[in-house]
């Protein structure tokens, strides 16, 4: 699978859980790799590229970290919008 296609699948996976469940990195690696039939490591690499350009972001709350789709405020703060 092309990396760009995989990134879209990751984003769709994130949208599915938005507001329902806090996903940690490994949840995404596991979930997307099962759905897309790729290795967790491939998901990890694609996801991290998305985080590095602000398409996804890390968040923290209630003592635990998670990965989320960034808010407009975050993108503005990072100069990405």
């Amino acid at each position, binding site marked *: 699978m092309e990396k760009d296609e995989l990134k879209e699948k990751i984003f769709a996976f994130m949208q599915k859980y938005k507001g329902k469940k*806090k996903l*940690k*990195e*490994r949840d995404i690696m596991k979930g997307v790799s099962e759905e897309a039939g790729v290795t967790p490591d491939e998901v990890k690499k694609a996801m*991290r590229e998305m*985080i*590095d350009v*602000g398409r996804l*972001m*890390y*968040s*923290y*709350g*209630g*003592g*635990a*970290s998670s*990965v*989320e789709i960034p*808010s407009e405020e*975050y993108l503005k*703060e*990072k100069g990405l919008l």
Partner: protein
Amino acid sequence: MKKHVTPLLDELEKGPWPSFVTEIKKAAKTSEMANDELGQVEYSFKTKKGYWKHGGIVGVLGYGAGVIGRYSDLPDMFPGVTFFHTVRLNQPSGWYYTTKALREIMTIWDKYGSGLTNMHGSTGDLVLLGTNTESLEPMFAEYSSRGWDLGGSGSALRTPSCCLGPSRCEWSNYDTMEACYNVTQEFQDELHRPAFNYKFKIKFAGCACDCVAASARADCSVIGTWKGPILIDQAAVKEHEKQGMNITAEIINMCPTQCMSYDGKELKIDNAECNRCMHCIAKMHKALKPSGERGATILLGSKAPIVVGSLLSWVVVPFIKMEAPFTEFKDLIRKIWEWWDENSKPRERIGELIEVKGMRPLLEAIGQPPVPQQVKEPRKDPFFFFKPEDFEKVFTKDKY
């Protein structure tokens, strides 16, 4: 700059100890943040309430750790601390700094933050206290261009730390600083990009004196040990006694395994019973020293009381060679993380998971055999659980 009146905080400047209030007051002469921090803390003391909010989404792009968002609940009263984020800088192994390095850190910090530091936080990082969200990216760019990096926070590997090891200590059984540096470099992803269910701390101590308190605070404690007998210089034993040491009371009776004896002429140690606790060696440093093969004991599970009660770590691997590139140790850590991730709930530390699941599934997952050294509390709290097939194997003499 408005001057806050702080009669309650001023009380904390009295007495013989260094005072954080005095230090904040010094910083407050040039920093509005530090000045308003004084005001807010005084107000907290007055009302007996805390006004810091914590958490949220702050950090530098690509990193999920290293910055802890902090905000004032009273931004109108204390605008200087509307944002008061904490930044963790990864400390050098053994906390060695040159004065040039410290000046470099502070020059950047005075430019972007309150000027207040905590050296060091309990995990080991150099903690920079109080900056705003806009300053994070430019500040990080300046630090990273000079070779500094952020430490761990959140559900990530926390910044590994170590005692100063063989750089100044004759008792160190492996190069703790090299191990800490090497492991930190290896696990950069796990440090900066939180992927776990909760925090994971690794601390390296060169011997069981455990100057970094690994056995009380680290999820994984790497504590130096040795295999040979304790070498005894009987003349030096006499010398300790001559200088006023009560060898029976201070050494023999304090030995946790009662493996030592002294008849006034000769000190004897039953090395097979010794658990390498370092008490006798630390007390009689001129007379006793370890010998033979050196390495470390790997322990898992200690933590402070948050979520459930505090735990001390316990032995998982009694002896491992700790030599660069530390491949065996790194492979072991990866297996431990795999098992922890597969089985833990959110905010569950590895020690808590072992308490719930027992030691057996962990040992099976990481490929370690059960050995007597892993028994933490014999006859009280057995944590090896037998499966029906084990009894079958005993019956058919297939195992045990």
